[in-house]
C-alpha cells in the first residue's frame, strides 16, 4: 500500500518498527519509546503520502492532537508536520491571528488569562505545557473564554486536585486571608484559651495595667476582647464573618463547659483562662540592700536564691542567735547531723575497703593500729 497512516500512534510499537524497517528507515539502536518510532514514522513515511490527505483518520485527531502537539523537543520538524496535516481542518489555534507556537510568552500568558488560568512564568521549560493548555482551552470553547475546568484528559486521572482551580479565581490578595482564616479556625479549637489570653494581654499592655491580681477581670475581658478582635476581621469578606461567628460560638460554648468542669475539679483554684494565677512578685529580702527580718527566713531557706544567701551570709551570722531562740531546728543541728553521717560513712568505707591503696591508711595507722587487715 502506498498510503501511509497519518496517525501512526494507532499502531503498536512492533508494527511501527516493522513498517519502518519495511521502508528502509534506519531505527535507533536498542529499545526506544513508542513515541520515537511514531516520530520516525511521521517523518519518513507520512511525508511520502500522496498530497490528497482527506483521511478519515483525522476525525480521531481531536483527541490525538494533544499528543502530537506535545512534541518532545523535536522542535520545528514536528511543528511543520502539524501544519501540513491540518490543511483541511479548521485551525483553532490560529483563531487569534497567531500560531500558538509562535506566540510570544506575553501573548501566551494573556491568552491563558482570558480563560481564567493564571499561568506561572512562561519559561523555556514551561512554555510547551502552557501552549498545550491553551490549545485545550481553545478547543473546548473558542467562544467560551470563561473559567473552564481542566480538560477531560486530566479528569480521567485521579481527581485529587490541588487548590489551583479555586485559586485561579481568586486574586493573590485573598489567598493569605484565606489561609489566615483557616489558621484562625484551627487555633481556637486547639488552643482555645491561648488566644483570648494573648489578645487580652495585648490590651493589658496597651492600657498599661500593672499588677496581675486581676483574675476576675480576665474572665470578663476575654470574651468581649475576643469578640471585638475576631469581629474586626470579618469586615474583609462576609464569608469570614460567618466563619468567625461559628467559631466564636463554638469556642464560647466550649469555654463555658470547660469552666464548669474545672470548677468542679478545682474549687479552690483561682479561675483564670489558663489556670495560671500570677501573684505579685514579692521583693527579694536582702537584695538591693533591703533590710532582713526574722520572718524572711521562715520556710524560705530552701526557696531563697543562693546569691541572696551567700551575699547576706554576714547578715545571717548576726541573725543566728536570734534565730536560735525562735527556731530550735537551726543550722547547728544540721551541721551536727552532717558530721555524724559523714563519720558513719567513713567508718563504713574503712571497713569495706580491701585494696591496698587506702587513702586513709595514714590515719588508720593512727586510729587503729590493731586493724591491719585493711591495709
Amino acid at each position, binding site marked *: 500500500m502506498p498510503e501511509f497512516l497519518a496517525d501512526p500512534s494507532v499502531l503498536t510499537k512492533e508494527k511501527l518498527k516493522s513498517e519502518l524497517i519495511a521502508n528502509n528507515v534506519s531505527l535507533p539502536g536498542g529499545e526506544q*519509546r513508542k513515541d520515537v518510532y511514531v516520530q520516525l514514522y511521521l517523518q519518513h513515511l507520512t511525508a511520502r503520502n500522496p498530497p490528497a490527505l482527506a483521511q478519515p483518520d483525522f476525525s480521531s485527531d481531536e483527541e490525538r492532537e494533544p499528543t502530537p502537539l*506535545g512534541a*518532545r523537543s523535536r522542535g520545528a520538524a514536528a511543528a511543520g508536520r502539524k501544519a501540513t496535516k491540518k490543511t483541511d481542518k479548521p485551525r483553532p489555534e490560529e483563531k487569534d491571528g497567531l500560531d500558538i507556537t509562535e506566540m510570544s510568552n506575553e501573548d501566551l500568558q494573556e491568552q491563558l488569562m482570558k480563560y481564567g488560568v*493564571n*499561568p*506561572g*512564568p512562561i*519559561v523555556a*521549560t*514551561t512554555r*510547551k*505545557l502552557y501552549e*498545550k*493548555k491553551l490549545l485545550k482551552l481553545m478547543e473546548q470553547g473558542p467562544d467560551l473564554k470563561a473559567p473552564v475546568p*481542566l480538560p477531560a484528559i*486530566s479528569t480521567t*486521572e*485521579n481527581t*485529587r*486536585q*490541588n487548590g*489551583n482551580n479555586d485559586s485561579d479565581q481568586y486574586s493573590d490578595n485573598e489567598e493569605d486571608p484565606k489561609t489566615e482564616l483557616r489558621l484562625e479556625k484551627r487555633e481556637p479549637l486547639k488552643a482555645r484559651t491561648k488566644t483570648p489570653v494573648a489578645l487580652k494581654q495585648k490590651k493589658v499592655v496597651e492600657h498599661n495595667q500593672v499588677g496581675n491580681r486581676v483574675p476576675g477581670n480576665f474572665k470578663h475581658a476575654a470574651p468581649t476582647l475576643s469578640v471585638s478582635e475576631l469581629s474586626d476581621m470579618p469586615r474583609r469578606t462576609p464569608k469570614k464573618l460567618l466563619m468567625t461567628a461559628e467559631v466564636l460560638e463554638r469556642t464560647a460554648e466550649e469555654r463555658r463547659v470547660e469552666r464548669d468542669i474545672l470548677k468542679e475539679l478545682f474549687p479552690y483554684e483561682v479561675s483564670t483562662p489558663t489556670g495560671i494565677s500570677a501573684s505579685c512578685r514579692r521583693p527579694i529580702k536582702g537584695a538591693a540592700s533591703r533590710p532582713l527580718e526574722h520572718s524572711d527566713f521562715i520556710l524560705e531557706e530552701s526557696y531563697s536564691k543562693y546569691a541572696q544567701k551567700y551575699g547576706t551570709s554576714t547578715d545571717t551570722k548576726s541573725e543566728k542567735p536570734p534565730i536560735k531562740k525562735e527556731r530550735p531546728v537551726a543550722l547547728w543541728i544540721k551541721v551536727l547531723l552532717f558530721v555524724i553521717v559523714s563519720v558513719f560513712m567513713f567508718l563504713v568505707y574503712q571497713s569495706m575497703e580491701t585494696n591496698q591503696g587506702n587513702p586513709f591508711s595514714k590515719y588508720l595507722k593512727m586510729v587503729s593500729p590493731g586493724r591491719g587487715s585493711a591495709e
Partner: protein
Amino acid sequence: SSTSQKHRDFVAEPMGDKPVGSLAGIGDVLGRKLEEKGFDKAYVVLGQFLVLRKDEELFREWLKETCGANAKQSRDCSGCLREWCDAFL
C-alpha cells in the same frame, strides 16, 4: 491515604541534596532519564514544580513528557513534592 515509604521518607525532612531518585514515583529508569535532561537533584525537579506554580496537573504533564512517567508515577511524584512544599516551603 496510603503513601509509600519513599514518600514518607522524602516528606519527613528537607530534601537537601538528595538525588532525583529519592522522589516518590521516580525509580532507576525515570531517574536516569531525568538526569540526562539535567534534573539530577530533587531540588531541580522541585524548581520545575514551583515554576509551574505548584500546579500538580501541569507538573504531571511535564513529568510525563520529560521522562515518560506513567499516571501513577507522576501522581506519586507530584503528591510527594506538594506535601514537601506544604511542610517546608
